[in-house]
């Protein structure tokens, strides 16, 4: 390894789609951001696109996967920069090679790496199609095991997330807070979570029955169950109309 100070991993900014991380990660991030700013006077050091591509090329050729990862993560979140073919290629190569060498990245880095991996593939797909991909048009891309804990996702949500959402939904708390809490701990954006709840609510009859039976509520008998069901339906209707009006 060459001599040189280690640069801590950090995310410089959170762009809108991924949700803000939980509390501890935010604190760490802030500390790291301050450290990064103190390295260069008046902000972080700016490489030109060409220079970034050159570094990526050097590190790829020498097979320095970890150094390449460190370098890529030190770069600012700049779309212009990241669209540079060399950079995207470097990232994809980095992950591919990492997969080949069975080098597993730490779980807390999985999200970011998966994002990069998917982005690289989407850009390739866009090139093939000759036009930008929509939200639905993104291909299902298999993730390498080095950046994925193996959990399946369906309709963009992991089973864990759905359970968490169901538990929150069963609570008699204001739904918006619960939705936010469920959303924060996981990947999807709060909008996505809110939509999920809306969709669940629109199939309400089935849902509340399930929720009731899951909790094993003392409501017990059929009569009570039916009564609570209709009450829930009324509550759900009013809520969905509220959120329908407010959220849009």
């Amino acid at each position: 390894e060459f001599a040189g100070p280690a640069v801590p991993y950090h995310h410089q900014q959170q762009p809108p789609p991924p949700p803000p991380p939980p509390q501890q990660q935010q604190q760490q991030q802030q500390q790291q951001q301050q450290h990064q700013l103190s390295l260069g006077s008046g902000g972080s050091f700016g490489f030109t696109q060409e220079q970034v591509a050159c570094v990526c090329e050097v590190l790829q050729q020498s097979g320095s996967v970890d150094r390449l990862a460190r370098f890529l993560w030190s770069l600012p979140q700049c779309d212009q920069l990241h669209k540079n073919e060399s950079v995207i290629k470097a990232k994809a190569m980095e992950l591919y090679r990492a997969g080949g060498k069975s080098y597993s990245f730490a779980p807390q880095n999985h999200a970011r790496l998966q994002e990069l991996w998917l982005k690289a593939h989407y850009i390739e797909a866009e090139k093939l199609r000759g036009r930008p991909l929509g939200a639905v048009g993104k291909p299902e891309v298999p993730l390498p095991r080095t950046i994925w804990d193996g959990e399946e996702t369906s309709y963009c949500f992991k089973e864990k997330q759905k359970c968490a959402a169901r538990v929150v939904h069963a609570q008699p708390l204001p739904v918006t807070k619960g939705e936010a809490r469920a959303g924060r701990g996981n990947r999807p954006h709060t909008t996505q979570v809110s939509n999920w709840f809306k969709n669940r609510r629109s199939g309400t009859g089935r849902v509340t029955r399930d929720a009731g039976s899951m909790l094993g509520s003392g409501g017990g008998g059929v009569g009570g169950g039916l009564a609570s069901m209709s009450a829930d339906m009324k509550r759900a209707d009013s809520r969905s109309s509220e959120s329908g009006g407010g959220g849009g």
Partner: protein
Amino acid sequence: KNLKSQPGSQPSASYLQSAAAAAAYHHSQPAAGAAAAAAAAAAAAAAHAGYPSGYQQTHHAGYPASRTRSRECLAANPRRRRCRLAKSAAPELLAGSRASRKANPSPGLGFELERVFVWDLDETIILFHSLLGGTYATRFGKSLIFRLADAHLFFNDLEECDQVHIDDVSSDDNGQDLAGYDFANDARDGRGMRGGVEWMRKLAYRYRRIKDVYNAYRNNVGGLLDPVKREEWHQVRQETEQFTDSWLTLALKSLSIIANRSACVNVLVTNTQLVPALGKILVFGLAPVFSVENVYSATKIGKESCFERIASRYGRKPTYVAIGDSHDEEAAAKSLNWPFWRVQNHNDLAALSYALDMGYL
């Protein structure tokens, strides 16, 4: 050290030095090895013993006549051309010159090279045309370089004998001790002969002596200059830095980081002829970061061929990075699939040293 303490008996001072230097060809950091330390001491001893005082006085005496003769001789000398064809493998690839086979070879240094940084000289490390214009530094700088090259690096003799690399004629060397050798007058006895072997051998002696001088004075260029020239030299350096906003200092940052790493090496490929290029390197204080065996002149064969030679020399294992300001270097780098770092302004140099410092390169 032993050689220095016995000034009377220096059996093979420069011989040993060039042998050690020859053996150090495939090592990236000659300065790091014990062999090179011995070489430097031997070279210094040789220099103090016979070199500047005796040499300089006789230097100018026989020149003009011998110079003309040498040119004619070289132009007509078929052996020279034959020699060039025979030496198809770059000499720096060989384990050592004939001289080194006689001396004890130095042990290998044992580390593996990871990066080879191939630099351009003019307008990348040294700015002459772009910023200096008609300043004192330009006028006196160039004059200083050529005067130093003439006085100490046989530029007059070798101007017509372009070599790509300092060891390109070493196979014609016989390893003779050069401590008391009279370079000025060796023209009188045999350079005119068409046999050619004599001439090639004398050529080889000159290149070996240049290597000795470079190694002896690379960290003390002032020692090569008389007080008047030394003052000029200081002024040239100072003004150059002032007018270029410390460009050279900035370039030296990156060069020094690389030179201090055992697994990295600085190589120079320049469009200047070899001897004046060595003069430039000495005058501008670049000699500590470039070994004399790592300097290539592309005047005859072009940058791409030089790059290929370098790639053959260091092999497939290291990663190569080309650094330059012009399309020449970029195209040559591209042809070999080497990453290219463009240097066109201060920021480019600053970014390079930052990337090196952070361990990204």
